[in-house]
């Protein structure tokens, strides 16, 4: 049985992969702020990646190259850091990334069922995406007394029941529509 969290081979991508590669003015501005306060460029690799990921959702190869060039580190150095951290996405993700917790406390409280329900609702497996969501289970979100939990769109959903799943997904979709 494959390991969910590492099996990031999405087979059902409907995300547009072609993104403009040069950094936008806003992105450059944010990176410049980071550069101005750093001890040396290599110190801000993680912050730089997270900063650009805020606007782009994920870090493509071209984006990585652009960031590397802008802050003055080699591509290999930046990717070495990017591929280490699990909140930096090097594959395309949808607008909302769902992080149902698959830690032990949530699993004790049938958290697996929630993840399964999400899969069924959206028709995707962990690591995959549909047009709105990417499913990336994460272990232990630090709210074990409210298990099972999920984080999505910066919201912590607590004590989730199977019945609530479709509502939650609808809620998240609506938020995206409002923001757009």
């Amino acid at each position, binding site marked *: 049985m494959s390991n969910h969290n590492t099996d990031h081979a999405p087979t059902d991508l409907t995300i547009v992969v072609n993104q403009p590669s040069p950094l936008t003015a806003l992105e450059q501005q944010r990176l410049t702020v980071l550069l101005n306060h750093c001890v040396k460029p290599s110190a801000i690799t993680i912050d730089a990646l997270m900063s650009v990921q805020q606007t782009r959702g994920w870090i493509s190869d071209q984006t990585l190259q652009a960031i590397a060039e802008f802050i003055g580190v080699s591509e290999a150095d930046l990717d070495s850091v990017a591929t280490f*951290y699990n*909140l930096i996405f090097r594959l395309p993700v949808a607008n909302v990334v769902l992080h149902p917790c698959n830690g032990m406390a949530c699993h*004790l*409280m049938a958290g697996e069922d929630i993840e399964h329900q999400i899969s069924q609702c959206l028709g995707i497996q962990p690591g995959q995406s549909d047009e709105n969501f990417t499913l990336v289970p994460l272990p*232990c979100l630090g709210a*074990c007394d409210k298990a099972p939990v999920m984080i999505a769109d910066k919201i912590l959903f607590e004590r989730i029941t199977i019945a609530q799943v479709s509502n939650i997904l609808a809620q998240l979709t609506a938020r995206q529509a409002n923001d757009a």
Partner: protein
Amino acid sequence: MMHNPDLTPPNKPMTRFVDGTKDCYVLENYQRHGGYQGFQQALTMTASEVLGQVKDSGLRGRGGAGFPTGLKWSFMPQGDDTPTPKYLVVNADEMEPGAFKDRYLLEKTPHQIIEGLLIAAKAVNADIGYIFIRGDYYLAIERLNIALEECRSAQLIGQNILGSGFNFEIHLHTSAGRYICGEETALINSLEGKRATPRAKPPFPQVSGLWGKPTIVNNVETYCNLPHILLFGVSWYQSLGRHKDFGTKLFGVSGRVKNPGLWELPMGTPVREIINDYAQGMCDGYQLKGFLPGGGSTDFLLPEHLDTPMDYDEIGKVRSRLGTGTITVLDDQYCPIKLVLNLVKFFSQESCGWCTPCRDGLPWAVSLLEKIERGDGQSTDIDQLIDITQFAAPGNTFCALAPGAVEPLQSALKFFRKDFEQHIAHKSCPYQQEHSHD
């Protein structure tokens, strides 16, 4: 400024700020309950006096290791010709399975953490502080940012704090995931923008840490103890323990209990009280089979250990660890192998990939546990699992991740051996799971 004579020493010093008001986390509320008075007390003392008080209090680190905090601080070199800047770091990268206590403090009492940090800075003559918080604690990040701004405006952070001549700057750093960032030296590497692999000790961070400079890393909860030690004194603090350890602790329970939650209780409160009284016992239809006293990297204990005080040494005597103090109960209807598999898989995924026993030993254990769980196990698999737990014992690995990972495994093999043997004998999992996803 001296003690506020109207403030009586509290029984629950850390959680008293959470008073039910909507914005309990703001500066005004914090100060109403006596916030920053401990720090002001510290400002009237010398660094070594502050350090001495913390040492005398007997405070032990709340991150899981339980190392005496004052002693840890004393390893930082002091004097005019020692390297600067000196750094203090708040380890707010809570990701231990079953742990949820730091989230509470970060979201609800950010100022308590800042005050603790300021006191520590005074004690060790530190110059710069970092709060290293996990990136998905969004609410906490928001509130910490607000709190830091409030402090800057109130001259509590920055140059010449409150006119005392003491300087200290604090930065908030959000991490990009990975459990290993909770390891202090890996955290330091992450702050430097690198991959979070740990560093060998010695040299200790106090001597060579962030950017090669003296650095101290402490847990969120540890810092939260400091304002009260300074404000209400050592003997009050020591009076709060019920056993050998002092002060209070945030204890929690998760799993199939009626009232999972978090409570501030004296150190040394027996497990039974926490589970049965505060968490109101097991849910109807469930029995307690075992529990992890302090997070996923502690050894299982059994119902026969329920009277053990939640105290570093006492839990140690029954061959487990106090760890984070957040208890996870294993009920009798959940397969122990499944639980252990979940944990070991977690740790094997969170391995940074630096040393052999963790990087290659843990996936090996996962493979064996998966085999057993799905009914393909053999008895020799148990022998291999035992070998792996000895292989990844403390001292054999580069850091404590793998030894922590094998704690639930080795204790499960000891206490739930029958379950392992049943899986193998019956070629299936005897615990009926309604939604099997294998």
